[in-house]
């Protein structure tokens, strides 16, 4: 049963299963995205969280921000934990051993949903093997990457999601360095290439788009990957009140394109067709420079000797945007 959502006010207060007043920094996007995901459905949700900001700030004994069943094992394995919980669900359902409350929910048409949240460190790097394994095996769950492009919880080290030119604590800008040297890994495409039936990129400011994709994901059988832009006030170094504005600049400059990839496949994983849809098209694509200028992690790029990195950024974003449109048009 897909939950009907009319307006933001109603949406934001519709389902209090996650307490936003927790230990996260003011203006943290992680909080916003988690609420958006949970509020997208009235079904019971079981959650696994990887080690990272979300985990350490929301379940500090004897408190918890979660009014849903929640598990944290380690930095790497949120995907395997929740995928295996889902397998247990199937087994207990088959054997008639599910708790009564869950049986009732199923009868009411509210099947439990299984979600893992991981930061980009947990997703792109250390937990990639587990994530890849779960997707290859076709587990029925949703993985949401809270992509703040940095290891925030351990103090802002680079990850393989950190974009070129960002200054982090392990790729600092300095007299002879412009910061991070490598391009960001294309996680959305990598996960789509696992043959996942549904993969999407979202941003918290475009909440309707996000909710629609989450709902689509919940209706999909098999592994679903959601890559969510998660502006981090502490490591992107913008003011807390600017979180949504920064996300907006990311979307409007096409640094963070909103799109989805749908792999139509049978139960054996044979893919019959791949379709890419761009779900938001900026009316006036703004220069990348505006996005970079809003975040002090890129401040040094505006020095004359580093300007070429801004040009590189623009080139990279243009090529990618072009390619996405080509793929959309070609239906592949």
């Amino acid at each position, binding site marked *: 049963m897909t939950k009907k959502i009319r307006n933001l006010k109603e949406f934001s207060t519709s389902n209090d299963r996650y307490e936003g007043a927790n230990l996260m920094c003011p203006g943290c996007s992680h909080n916003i995205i988690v609420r958006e995901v949970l509020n997208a459905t009235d079904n019971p949700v079981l959650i696994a969280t990887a080690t990272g900001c979300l985990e350490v700030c929301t379940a500090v*004994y004897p408190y918890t921000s979660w009014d849903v*069943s929640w598990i944290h094992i*380690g930095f*790497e*394995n949120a995907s395997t934990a929740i995928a*295996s*919980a889902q397998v247990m669900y199937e087994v207990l359902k088959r054997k008639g051993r599910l*708790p009564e409350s869950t049986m009732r929910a199923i009868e009411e048409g509210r099947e*439990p949903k299984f979600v893992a949240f991981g930061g980009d460190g947990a997703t792109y790097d250390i937990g990639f093997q587990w994530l890849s*394994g779960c997707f290859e095996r076709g587990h029925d769950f949703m993985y949401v990457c809270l992509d703040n492009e940095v290891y925030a919880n351990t103090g802002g080290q680079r990850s393989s999601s950190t974009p070129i030119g960002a200054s982090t604590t392990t790729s600092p800008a300095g007299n002879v360095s412009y910061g991070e040297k490598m391009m960001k890994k294309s996680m959305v495409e990598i996960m789509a290439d696992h043959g996942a039936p549904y993969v999407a990129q979202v941003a918290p400011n475009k909440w309707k788009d996000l909710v629609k994709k989450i709902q689509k994901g919940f209706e999909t059988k098999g592994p679903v990957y959601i890559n969510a832009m998660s502006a981090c006030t502490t490591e992107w170094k913008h003011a807390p009140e600017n979180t949504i504005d920064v996300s907006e600049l990311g979307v409007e400059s096409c640094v963070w394109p909103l799109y989805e990839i749908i792999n139509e496949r049978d139960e054996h994983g044979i893919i019959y067709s791949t379709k890419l849809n761009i779900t938001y098209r900026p009316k006036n694509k703004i220069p990348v420079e505006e996005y970079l200028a809003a975040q002090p992690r890129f401040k040094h790029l505006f020095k004359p000797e580093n300007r070429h990195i801004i040009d590189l950024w623009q080139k990279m974003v243009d090529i990618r945007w072009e390619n996405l449109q080509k793929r959309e048009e070609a239906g592949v």
Partner: protein
Amino acid sequence: MAEKMQLNEVEVWDGNMAAAQALRQAQIDVVAAYPITPSTPIVQNYSKFLADGYVDGEFIMVESEHGAMSGCVGAAAAGGRVATATSSQGFALMIEVLYQASGMRLPIVLTVVNRALAAPLNVNGDHSDMYLGRDAGWINLCSYNPQEAYDMTLMAFKIGEDLNVRLPVMVHQDGFLCSHTAQNVRPLQDEEAYGFIGEYKPVNSMLDVANPVTHGVQTEEDWHFEHKARQHNDLMNSVSTIKKVFAEFEKLTGRKYDLLHKYKMDDAEVAIVALGTTVESAEIAADRMREKGVKAGVLGIRVLRPFPFKEIQEALKNVKAIAAMDRSAPGGTFGMLFNEIGAAMLQSGKTPVLLNYIYGLGGRDTTIAHLTDIYEQLDRCAKSGKSEYPLQQFIGLRGPKLSFY
């Protein structure tokens, strides 16, 4: 529903088959596993049972041992019976999650077929992996032959899932020496085995959606200590459940187990303390020594964690010379058994001679002759009342003798 398997009164099983059969009879809900020699056949046997309809659960063939134990933790937290198997490097890869499983109080069963740790790479048996995991907060049961591997695995479920315990349990057996050696095993029939273990009773199940639970929280200095203390307390107290389950098993099968396996210990003056298949070899050596008039005994550790401290003091109280046999590279100190037996004896007020023998690394054969040599040394020490040899000796090693202290 799973098909029943008709078993003979006596089956010829190796340790791996024995463990796999026990897993089958426990009707595990979810197994998440990854293969590694010498425990691979457990996973393979189990898959075949599944393919033939003898198991009604799910088998997740994951991409690594870390994934296997992660899957076990997630599935167990969801509220069903869970188990897996591993050895050596796979065990080492699981280590992070082994602590997480016990910290979350999930009664997972792990059958460990013991094997050396690289480097150098070696697929054969020693106890390096067992020693690596000894502080992970799990109950550790040791089996010396396929029959015991079967019995201990069945009992592991009942012990770990007991509501007073709720802790994960490892069942150890020696790589190849037990895992690949076929012997007569007397199994229980399926209903009997399942009836003994009982149905799984979920605690704090994530799947009870009306009662959400939080597993694996963050605690810092304000609560971590209390959590770990409580966990330790319950692990220490699990002894009473272990004894209870051993007793129930004896009633059912006539096979008697205790925290320690004692052979001719009543009047022993010299004793070998060991783990694994060496216990049975030492029994033969003890018999030979007895023929020569030496009062030799063997003490096998059956329950390594919780460590049977008092029982060891009691069993060794009249022994004059003891060999603590460690089948793991000691890594810069004495072997674990030496240290732990030493601590027990120190507190008992008795001061027997205690020697540490490092043996059998990487599957090196340990012969009856080696063990009778050890008894000879012990006998000499017992007679003189003092240590006549270096405290730590490597036995069965090629080249010059190696000893310390």
